[in-house]
């Protein structure tokens, strides 16, 4: 047993000094390999985390959203049809949503304007649930997890006031108390006072939001009181969501229900491998990998063959040579795997995917600053290990089988270097 360990040690020692002898080539290889692992791991960490986060956050999204379609386009939903929906068996509650986009020409930014939903309280009085304003008020209780995140405070949404997301505040350099001008549908300029800014923790969902009162929303976009953007439907029995959804289509053929399942499924398949950028990243990585696996597998250089000949002549068995090549592959791929994975982790979770950011941003002027929750699993690392370390190590060993055909006496036969 001790002999066995010593033998491995000697052979690893030899492998390492062999690798060091071809410094430029092997460090280049290591760097390229690390880069590939880094890219694959970054993509993996990023997409997995964002999917996981989406599935957690969006599990709170409405059970069913009903849009009206007109000529293939999303159209305003007539309030009158809400009553029709309410009559469907299994429907617990139907609530209107008012939201839309506003394009700010000066900045080239798109905002999402949203009217906080209205519910009826026990007394039958309508009140906005703009509990909403998770205004930055950390000074109140920074460490208290039970702090009421959404509170009325004095930031209650009154006509003429808005609450904006962090992304907008950052892009516009706006502060509470500033007035923000909007060009209404009829060309008039309206100013709203910024009453609060949504928390930076929630930027992943709220960065470009502008919360606005219903009255302001309607007058800004010229939407009549009979219409809303779409409606949300809550069902009595969560198992009946799809039944209710198909009933809705039957009763309102021009409507399109989107269930929470649909939303979650959309985010499950976001960053699918077929997506353009993903396919570019993956194919580049795979291609690079194939190239050097090919380089390895296509054989040994004359120098390597000669060296193997010498080793066999001085008493190394074929198995010792294969062991040496195995360690050679293992040393490079393990080092690359760990370095790549560590760098990727730092890249994704500490620097906020610095390298991906330009691509992710696209042409958005407003890009949320978000810190991803590091959802990372051992399975992910294991997958990464199997798609990088194993094939490379195998590709290193394979041509060595052919080295078994190098006769030990080849060292006696070659003359001159």
């Amino acid at each position, binding site marked *: 047993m001790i002999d066995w360990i010593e033998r491995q040690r000697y052979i690893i020692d030899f492998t390492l000094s062999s690798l060091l002898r071809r410094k430029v080539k092997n460090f280049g290889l290591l760097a390229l390999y690390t880069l590939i692992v880094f890219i694959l791991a970054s993509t993996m960490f990023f997409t997995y985390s964002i999917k996981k986060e989406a599935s957690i956050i*969006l599990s709170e*999204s409405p059970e069913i959203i009903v849009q009206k379609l007109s000529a293939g386009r999303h159209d305003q939903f007539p309030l009158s049809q809400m009553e029709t929906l309410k009559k469907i068996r299994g429907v617990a509650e139907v609530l209107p949503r008012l939201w839309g986009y506003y394009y700010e020409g000066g900045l080239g930014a*798109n905002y999402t304007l949203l009217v906080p939903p209205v519910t009826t309280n026990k007394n039958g009085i309508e009140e906005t649930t703009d509990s909403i304003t998770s205004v930055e008020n950390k000074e109140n209780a920074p460490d208290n997890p039970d702090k009421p995140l959404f509170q009325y405070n004095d930031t209650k949404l009154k006509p003429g006031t808005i609450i904006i997301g962090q992304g907008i505040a950052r892009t516009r350099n706006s502060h509470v108390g500033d007035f923000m001008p909007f060009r209404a549908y009829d060309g008039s300029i309206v100013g709203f006072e910024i009453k609060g800014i949504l928390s930076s923790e929630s930027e992943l969902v*709220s960065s470009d939001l502008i919360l606005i009162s219903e009255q302001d929303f309607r007058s800004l976009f010229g939407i009549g009181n009979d219409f809303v953007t779409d409606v949300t439907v809550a069902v009595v029995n969560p198992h009946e969501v799809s039944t209710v959804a198909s009933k809705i289509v039957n009763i309102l053929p021009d409507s399109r229900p989107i269930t929470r399942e649909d939303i979650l499924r959309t985010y499950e398949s976001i960053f699918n491998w077929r997506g353009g950028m993903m396919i570019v990243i993956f194919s580049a990585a795979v291609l690079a990998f194939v190239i050097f696996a090919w380089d390895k597998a296509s054989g040994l250089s004359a120098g390597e063959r000669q060296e193997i000949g010498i080793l066999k002549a001085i008493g190394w068995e074929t198995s010792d040579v294969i062991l040496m090549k195995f360690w050679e592959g293992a040393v490079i791929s393990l*080092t690359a795997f760990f370095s790549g994975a560590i760098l990727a982790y730092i890249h994704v979770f500490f620097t906020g995917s610095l390298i991906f950011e330009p691509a992710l941003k696209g042409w958005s002027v407003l890009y949320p600053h978000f810190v991803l929750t590091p959802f990372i699993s051992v399975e992910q690392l294991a997958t990464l290990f199997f798609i990088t370390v194993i094939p490379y190590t195998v590709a290193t060993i394979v041509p060595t089988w052919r080295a078994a055909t190098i006769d030990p006496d080849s060292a006696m036969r070659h003359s001159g270097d």
Partner: protein
Amino acid sequence: MAFFLIIMLEAFILALLIAQASLNISSMQGALKEKKTLVRSLKLTDLCLFTEARYTRHLSQADLNTPFQDHPLSLEHFPSGSFTLPTNLISKRK
């Protein structure tokens, strides 16, 4: 045996990072909860990842033809649009 030291060190760092990740997940529960509450109370449906176009901002709400209707070349959607699929949830519905 410097190699083993390096590998051990790297494995250790990776283990530390994973440990840090799980710590981080628990420390971020507050922020997660906040986002969930915001989604529930404002009835939000999407992540604010790409703000440049309707179908990238509200991926799940995009109507059937959105990804291809704004501009024949869809230039403004290139990088982020290319990450995501055109409303695949539609194709799965009958």
